Each structure stands twice: as structure tokens, then as C-alpha cells.
């Protein structure tokens, strides 16, 4: 029964490893293919731009925009990377005035002006998700499918939208997707927006000009398309992956700077948040599925290894007799190699079938649910199955080799004389425990009797708890980060340049607390990666500040210092290798500014530098881009403030998004937690029961000599508690170190995250291992209670 249970456990572990690998792998491959298809340059794809030139402070008029495109095309530097086209576009932040069951909602929005261009087209696949046509007239728009389904809007409906110049009605003529908004999140947020809390729409050129009150041909974005899909520089690596494209961007930057004095930034696709986020997600999934398969297979491998060792111990006498009778080593080894191979093949087959039939489709379905785009044409590829099968079989085979070798090299005489059972205990541990009562000393010594087995067990438990712990710790840490749970504002009202006065007036009239904020993109000198500079009126670590700063090093910046003092987030410090006290030059388009780093902040997911608003304002010539509001009881945002703003973010929406995401993922989250615990239960129980069964003769001796079962129970309980505690502490330490390592491998410039294990999570991990360990005591003691002492005495005396 016990052997069958052990067999079931290891087969299940292999199956779970394959299941997880196939499921994640199917997901990773499917989304990779999906993005490639959506972004591709062909008729079916959207032809994602290769270089973006964004005017960060104003718009270019039509003449300048066209002349910039001509200048860029004229001296294009790389004939191997020919420029196909340059298209001026307008993208503006704004609002959608949405009525829902009589309630007027102000939904933050981004409006794109898209003519029938060749770059960054609207994606309207032949699928039930999408319908209609592109916008042509100046009162038509294509609404993004995420927003349409979230708000229940259909083709033919009329919607009311704005971009800082009042509200206007537009007819929805189509529903589709846009390559910038496949991952549907507010700018700066890593959470997908709750349905109905964010809108994007794709208007005709004339439509966007009417909405934003712009002259014909105006643009704040130049899209450059080069032939094919060139390599681009990944923001998270030291290497320059797309050297040709980087050189082209440098050329574009210089050309625009020479031709125009507007503040602008130029970047490749790694600078587009949604594109970069999905790439990082798909890359993370691609990197993690072999690791997950390998990790679970490794736990199964360790369990197989330990089980085989135990099997060999229990069959040592039979093997010794076979060897004495002249059976060659080569005849003994295959039997022990065959066992893990059979376990691996059975487990893998089950895992592959379940993964391909259920896991992969479930992961893709969850992706569709969370990301909100149809995963067209996903499949589990044979190469993925072979890769996962290969990993699992190699691991289980390695696990079987050593025990099989040990079995084949058994010395018959040693076994038959009982010499194999004679061993010298550790003198060091004896000395350490010699002053304790003998029962306690024995408990401690028995706990560490097989150090290698314990190390393997703790490693396996650590691996299984890693699955559980990383998830749990990440969720804990993310809660604060993504919802800004410690912040004290209700709404961030974005304003057109110079428009903050009206919002402040509204705030004063309605008794709301307010604080102006200046947010502006910049980059370090000699580095193209973009950060956001936040100019705050109050930089404070106090809990009641609108944005309390989590200062992890250094001090708060001094106001009006000769060299402006700034706080830099830890991600930026890490990627740029900056240090506190250093002076660095930062660029805001064509403007450069020397700053002194007075401290480091933690808790920012995006790259952030905090300025005193007046310092930042002096450098870029703008007063504010948004106003933070804390609304008094009973006051709500109304159409008036909506019409004067170019986007309003409500903090409650961020919290709702996170909670909704958690709810969506609760099932898989619980499954992963449960899986980690189940594997830890299996591994730890097997090892503890093996320890006990190895001590059968020792415990039988004590029983025959009159040791009461209650005292033996206490000894075993103590031993299991000690093993659980040591294992728990080591597992928790292993989980924290490994989780931090894994996260350090996954973080990007655009998404930096550091794991801050809290006491409760760590204690929870330790307690789980202790509880698993202690709970296996009754199984062990029941085995001793049921021990047939007559049979045992025969063993002891014959």
C-alpha cells in the first residue's frame, strides 16, 4: 500500500511537471505567434511602427510635421534598413462621457487620429470580436473592443467624448483593436483596466482635429516604418541587440533636434508600454515553462532517488544473495534504471495528455479573459511536447542512475554480515547534545542522521515551496505597489498645458484638497530609455502626504538647491548604475539639466525621478500637467471638470482593477498554492516515513525493552518538529533568495519590481513545512503501534 502510494506520488509529480510545462508552453508559444501576426507588416497585420518620434509638450503643425518626415527620409543613414514610410499622427488623452444606468461616468481615454495609413493600423480580424469599418468622417470613430464590450457599446451607437475642449458626439462605425492597446491598461499602470474604466478610440484625421481643436495636418507623433521587422534594443539587457535601429534612432533624434526646437522623444517598440509589456510577458512565459517543468521534475527526481535508495536498502539482502550466486552487475542495474524510466514515461504521458487537452486551452482562455484579445489559432506544438518530455526524462533518469549503481556495487559479504548497518555517529553532534536528556539527544541526532537525504529533501521542499512562496510573496508585495494603497488622492486630473488653474478653481469651489503635479518624460544623457519626472509640491515620507515617498536611502531633496536635488527610484538606480550623491545629466527632449541625487525611493514599478515641482518647471518651462484631488464626502467629479481635463484617473478604479485581476486569477492562484503544498507534503512525508522505517529495528528494540508508546510518540514528534523547523527555515530562506533571483531575471526597465518578503509570509512558509512535518507523526506512530514485535524480535535475534 505504502509503495503504491509512493509510486502514485512520484508519477503524479512527473505528470504535474509536464502538465504545467505544456500549459505554460502552449500559452507562451501561442501569444508569441499571436503578437508576431498582429504586429506583422503584411495585409493581415497592423504593421507596428519601428520608430516613434513623440512631441512631448505640444503639436507640430502640418507643414512642420511633413517637413520633419521629408528631412528624416532625405538622409536616411542605413541602406540595409530602408525607410518605407513616415506618417504624422495625433494621439491625445481625453475622456469619454459614459452614461450607465442613469449615472454619468467620466472614463479616461486616449484618442488616435488614424487615416487609412500603412503604419499602426487598427486590427479588425475576421472574428466575432470585431465588426464595422474604419472612421472616415469627422464625427465617426472606431471604438476599441475592450471598451465596447466593457461599456456595452455597439456599432451605430453614438458616444460623447472630449479632449479638453468640451464634449462632442461621435458615431461608432467599427469595433477593433489597436497595436498600442492590446494590453488594455491606463498609461503607467501594469494592471489591465477594469471593463468600462478606460476607453480608446480611432478617429479620422479630421475627427481628431475637431476633437482636439487642432489645425489640419497637425501631429504630435511621427511613425517611421522600415522594411521588415528589425531587431530592437531590449531595455533590460546590457547588450545592444538592434544596433542598426539604434543608429537610425540617433540619426532621427539629431535630425529632428536640428529642424525643430520642440521637446520630443524618439524610441523603438520597447518604449511603447503595451507592446513592451506583452513582449516581456510572452518572454517570461517562454523562459519560465522549462524552469517549471524542470523544477517539478527535479522534485519528482529527488523523490524517486530517495525511494529507490530505500528500495535498495530493503532489498539489499536479496541483491547480496543474487550477487553471491554469481549474477553479474550488468543484470542488476537495468532493473533499477527501468523503474524511473517507467515512472517518467507514465507520468509524462498523463501530463502531456492533460496539458494539451485541458491545461493549454485553459491558459489561453484565461489569457483571453484577462488580456481581452482573441487568441486566434493557438496549438500545442510537437516540439513543445518533445522539449518538456526531454527535460522530465533526463531528470528522472539521472535520479535513477546513482541508486542503480549503488545496487549493482553492493558487497555481498558486508550485507550478509550486517556490516552495512554499522555506522559511526557524528562525534561533534554527540558533544553538542551530550548535556541534554538522552531522549532529546537521540531526537536531535536522529533528525540529522542522514544529512545528504535531508539536504535533498529540504532542497525538494524548498523547490515546491518556491512555487507557493513566490506567488504568495509577489501578491503581498504587489498589492501595495499597484494600487498605491498608501497614497491619499482620489483623482488625478490631467490638464492641457496651462489648464491647471480651472481645475484648482473647481477644487476650491467644491472644498477638495488639491496639489499640482508636473509629469514629464525624460531620459539620462547617453541613454535612450525613458523615465517619468514627477514634479511634486510636497515631497514627504509622511503617511498623510498625497504621494508619500518610501525613502530607502539618502535624504529628501532640498528645495531650490543650486543643482536641483532629486529622488530616484531603485530600478532606475540599478539599471543606470547611479549612486546617491552623484550629479547626473538628464534630458527632457532638447533640454538638458544637471541634477544631484539626494536619495533613493522604492515601490515604483515604472522608472521615476522626483523633483520639487518648481525645479522641474524651471527646466522645462511648464507649470503642471495634472492636479491631484482629495474629494470631500459627497462630492463627485462632474462633467464640468471632465470638459476641462484631458483625462482623469480615479484611484478607486486602480484598486478595482487589481481586485478584479485577483478574482479572475483566484482559481489558478489557489491551484498553484495548493500544488506547492501538495508536493511538499508528498516529499516530506516520504522522507520522514523512510526515516522511520529505517529505524524499525531501533524502535522495536525500545518497545521490547519496555519503552511506552507515548514516549516514543513524543520522540518522533520532536524529531519531526525539528526536521520541519529546520526544513521550514531553510525552505523560507531558499524561497526568498530564489524568488528574488527569479524576479531579478524578469524585471525590465519598464517593469521593475523588488520582492519585499514580510514577516507574515515568511512565517507562513515556515509554519506550513512544520505542520506538514508534524502531521506525518501519527502515520509514523501508528506504524509503530501496529508493529508485530514477535516478528521484529525474530529479525533481531536471527
Amino acid at each position: 500500500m505504502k509503495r503504491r502510494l509512493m509510486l502514485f506520488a512520484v508519477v503524479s509529480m512527473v505528470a504535474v511537471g509536464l502538465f504545467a510545462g505544456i500549459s505554460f508552453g502552449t500559452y507562451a508559444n501561442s501569444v508569441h505567434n499571436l503578437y508576431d501576426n498582429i504586429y506583422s507588416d503584411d495585409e493581415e497585420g497592423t504593421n507596428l511602427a519601428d520608430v516613434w518620434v513623440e512631441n512631448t509638450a505640444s503639436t507640430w503643425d502640418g507643414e512642420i510635421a511633413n517637413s520633419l518626415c521629408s528631412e528624416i527620409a532625405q538622409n536616411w543613414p542605413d541602406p540595409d534598413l530602408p525607410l518605407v514610410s513616415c506618417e504624422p499622427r495625433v494621439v491625445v488623452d481625453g475622456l469619454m462621457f459614459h452614461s450607465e444606468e442613469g449615472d454619468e461616468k467620466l472614463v479616461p481615454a486616449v484618442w488616435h487620429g488614424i487615416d487609412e495609413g500603412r503604419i499602426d493600423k487598427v486590427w479588425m480580424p475576421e472574428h466575432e470580436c470585431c465588426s464595422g469599418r474604419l472612421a472616415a468622417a469627422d464625427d465617426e470613430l472606431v471604438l476599441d473592443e475592450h471598451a465596447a464590450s466593457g461599456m456595452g457599446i455597439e456599432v451605430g451607437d453614438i458616444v460623447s467624448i472630449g479632449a479638453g475642449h468640451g464634449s462632442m458626439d461621435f458615431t461608432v462605425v467599427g469595433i477593433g483593436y489597436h497595436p498600442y492597446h492590446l494590453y488594455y491598461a491606463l498609461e503607467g499602470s501594469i494592471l489591465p483596466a477594469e471593463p468600462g474604466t478606460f476607453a480608446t478610440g480611432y478617429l479620422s484625421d479630421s475627427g481628431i482635429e475637431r476633437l482636439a481643436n487642432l489645425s489640419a495636418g497637425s501631429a504630435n507623433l511621427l511613425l517611421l516604418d522600415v522594411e521588415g521587422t528589425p531587431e530592437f534594443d531590449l531595455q533590460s539587457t546590457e547588450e545592444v541587440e538592434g544596433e542598426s535601429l539604434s543608429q537610425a534612432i540617433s540619426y532621427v533624434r539629431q535630425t529632428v533636434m536640428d529642424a525643430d526646437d520642440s521637446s520630443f522623444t524618439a524610441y523603438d517598440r520597447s518604449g511603447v508600454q503595451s507592446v513592451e509589456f506583452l513582449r516581456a510577458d510572452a518572454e517570461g512565459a517562454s523562459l519560465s515553462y522549462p524552469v517549471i517543468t524542470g523544477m517539478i521534475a527535479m522534485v519528482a527526481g529527488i523523490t524517486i532517488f530517495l525511494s529507490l535508495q530505500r528500495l535498495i536498502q530493503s532489498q539489499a539482502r536479496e541483491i547480496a544473495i543474487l550477487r553471491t550466486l554469481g549474477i553479474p552487475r550488468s543484470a542488476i542495474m537495468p532493473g533499477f534504471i527501468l523503474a524511473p524510466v517507467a515512472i517518467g514515461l507514465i507520468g509524462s504521458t498523463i501530463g502531456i495528455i492533460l496539458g494539451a487537452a485541458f491545461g493549454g486551452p485553459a491558459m489561453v482562455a484565461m489569457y483571453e479573459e484577462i488580456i481581452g484579445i482573441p487568441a486566434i489559432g493557438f496549438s500545442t506544438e510537437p516540439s513543445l511536447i518533445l522539449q518538456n518530455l526531454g527535460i522530465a526524462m533526463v531528470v528522472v533518469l539521472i535520479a535513477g542512475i546513482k541508486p542503480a549503481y549503488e545496487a549493482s556495487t553492493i558487497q555481498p559479504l558486508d550485507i550478509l554480515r550486517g556490516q552495512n548497518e554499522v555506522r559511526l555517529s557524528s562525534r561533534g553532534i554527540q558533544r553538542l547534545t551530550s548535556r541534554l536528556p538522552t531522549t532529546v539527544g537521540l531526537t536531535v541526532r536522529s533528525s540529522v542522521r542522514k544529512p545528504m537525504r535531508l539536504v535533498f529533501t529540504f532542497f525538494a521542499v524548498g523547490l515546491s515551496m518556491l512555487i507557493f512562496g513566490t506567488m504568495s510573496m509577489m501578491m503581498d508585495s504587489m498589492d501595495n505597489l499597484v494600487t498605491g494603497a498608501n497614497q491619499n488622492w482620489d483623482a488625478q486630473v490631467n490638464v492641457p498645458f496651462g489648464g491647471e488653474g480651472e481645475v484648482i478653481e473647481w477644487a476650491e469651489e467644491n472644498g477638495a484638497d488639491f496639489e499640482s503635479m508636473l509629469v514629464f518624460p525624460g531620459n539620462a544623457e547617453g541613454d535612450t530609455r525613458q523615465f517619468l519626472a514627477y514634479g511634486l509640491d510636497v515631497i514627504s515620507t509622511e503617511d498623510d502626504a498625497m504621494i508619500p515617498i518610501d525613502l530607502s536611502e539618502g535624504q529628501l531633496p532640498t528645495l531650490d538647491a543650486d543643482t536641483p536635488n532629486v529622488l530616484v527610484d531603485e530600478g532606475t538606480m540599478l539599471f543606470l548604475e547611479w549612486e546617491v550623491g552623484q550629479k547626473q545629466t538628464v534630458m527632457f527632449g532638447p533640454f538638458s539639466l544637471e541634477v544631484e541625487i539626494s536619495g533613493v525611493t522604492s515601490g515604483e514599478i515604472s522608472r521615476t525621478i522626483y523633483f520639487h515641482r518648481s525645479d522641474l518647471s524651471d527646466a522645462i518651462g511648464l507649470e503642471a500637467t495634472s492636479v491631484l484631488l482629495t474629494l470631500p464626502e459627497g462630492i463627485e467629479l462632474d462633467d464640468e471638470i471632465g470638459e476641462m481635463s484631458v483625462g482623469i484617473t480615479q484611484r478607486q478604479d486602480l484598486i478595482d482593477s487589481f481586485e478584479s485581476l485577483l478574482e479572475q486569477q483566484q482559481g489558478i492562484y489557489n491551484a498553484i498554492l495548493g500544488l506547492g503544498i501538495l508536493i511538499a507534503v508528498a516529499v516530506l512525508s516520504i522522507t520522514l516515513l523512510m526515516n522511520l522505517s529505517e529505524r524499525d529495528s531501533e524502535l522495536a528494540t525500545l518497545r521490547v525493552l519496555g519503552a511506552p508508546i507515548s514516549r516514543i510518540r513524543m520522540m518522533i514528534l520532536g524529531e519531526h518538529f525539528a526536521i520541519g523547523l529546520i526544513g521550514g527555515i531553510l525552505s523560507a530562506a531558499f524561497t526568498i533568495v530564489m524568488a528574488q533571483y527569479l524576479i531579478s531575471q524578469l524585471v525590465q526597465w519598464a517593469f521593475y519590481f523588488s520582492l519585499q518578503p514580510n514577516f507574515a509570509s515568511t512565517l507562513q512558509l515556515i509554519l506550513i513545512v512544520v505542520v506538514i512535518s508534524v502531521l506525518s507523526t501519527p502515520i509514523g506512530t501508528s506504524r509503530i503501534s501496529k508493529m508485530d514485535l514477535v516478528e521484529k524480535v525474530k529479525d533481531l535475534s536471527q
Partner: protein
Amino acid sequence: MSMPLVSMKGLERHYHMASGTVRALDGIDLEISEGERIILLGPSGSGKTTLLNCISALDSPTAGTYRFAGGEVPRAPEIPLRWWNRITTESRTAWFDPLRPLLRLLLYPLHYFSYSRPMAKASEEATSFRRENIGYVFQFFNLLQDLTVLENITLIQELAGGRDEARARHLLDLVGLSEEVDRFPAEISGGQQQRVAIARSLAKKPRLLLGDELTGNLDSKTSGMVMEVLVKACQAEGITCVFVTHDESLVEYSTRAVRLDSGKILSDDRIG
């Protein structure tokens, strides 16, 4: 006349095997007085070890009476288990096999209260009996490898309810091992290990010491040395001894030799 320490009348022990019932003990009448050293001799399968197991209450007789120092010795109750065995063991009705695990699970509480629990209670009573009255020496010494010589003795004292290191040291002195107290079993010879086992069996002052082939794993010179130590220690502590052996030469260390065959006493001779 003083009361015998061990008194057995018509003791029987039967084992039910597939091939039929084996009568391992078949009507044993035996009385042992305090201070005696009895050697049980006989060929393999004669019932020596079964008798020793019944004396130590490791095994329960099928029939007959067994009193120790005038008191009833605890024995396992006779509880029929046919219904449980029918459910849990293989049978010819293959269609029923898939249902066995479920039935086991459902009926386990009944099995637990009707069989496991009373048996565990009886087993604990027998353990208490051994703890209070019996010392035991095995053929293969069975010392705990993680404990030193001294700790092997203090462990038994602690488990029996009271550590007495001075007595442990005295016993080691008695068996000639006062120099080896801090050594591990693996660091001393087989003869020395068996002497430690003797000291361990005396640690809680038993009234009866039992040995099963206790010199079977030793050469004849060492065997003699161990037996001398055993006799000396038992005399010094006033302990009654019963030991099982194939070795006729050990008769010289006993005061009485009992020979068994086929579960019956063939002869019972006083020595010297």
C-alpha cells in the same frame, strides 16, 4: 514454599498458517523461582523462542495460564478478524477488488474500535509489564548507533521513567566497560557490545532477564566471557535469567536446563 516468579500451566500457542495450524507450544507446564538461571535448549522450531516471547508478553498464548509473581500477565484479546480480512485481502471475486479501498475506508472506524484500539491497549499493558519486570538481550545486540555506550543505558532509564547515571556507570563497571562509556557501539567489539546490551537490560532492575541466542553472534572465547559477565551481574543484582540457545556448552552457566521439542518440554534438569 515461596511463590514462583513464573508459573505456566498447559500453555499453548498455535499459529494458523495456509498449510494448517502449527502448535508452536503444546501444553507447557513450567515454574521458575527467583534467582534461577534457566537455559532453554532444543532444535530449530522446537518452540524455545515462542516460549521466551510468551514469558516476555511479546506474544500471547492461545490457551493455558501464565502468572508472573502471582499476578496475571496481560495478553492480547482474541478478537475475530475474519470479516476485515475478507474485505482487505485478495479473493477470487475480481469484480469486488475496485471496491475494497472504499470499503476499507468506510469500515475503518469499526475496525479501529473493535480491533485496533483494544489490541493497542493490550500491547501497551504488555509493554508496561516488560518495562517493570523484564530485561531482554538480543543476538545482534541492537544498540542504538547514535548513542554512546553510557547513553544506550540512560536512554532506557529515561524511557522507563527515571535517569540514574550513577547506576548506569555502576552497571558498565560490573560488565567491565567503565573505560568505554563515551564510545559509540561501532567503536567497540562485538563481545563488548553484547556486554553493553546486558548492562542495558539490567538498567531498570528487572526481575527476569531474557536472552535469545545472546552469544550466537560471538566466537566461543567471547561467548564464555559474556556469559561469565551475565552470571556475575545477575548474581550481583539478584536477577532471574532465562536464555535460549543451541549451544550445549552454555549449560555450565545455568542452574537448570530445559529441553524442548515440537512445543513440549522433553526434560527439565537441575545443574550442579
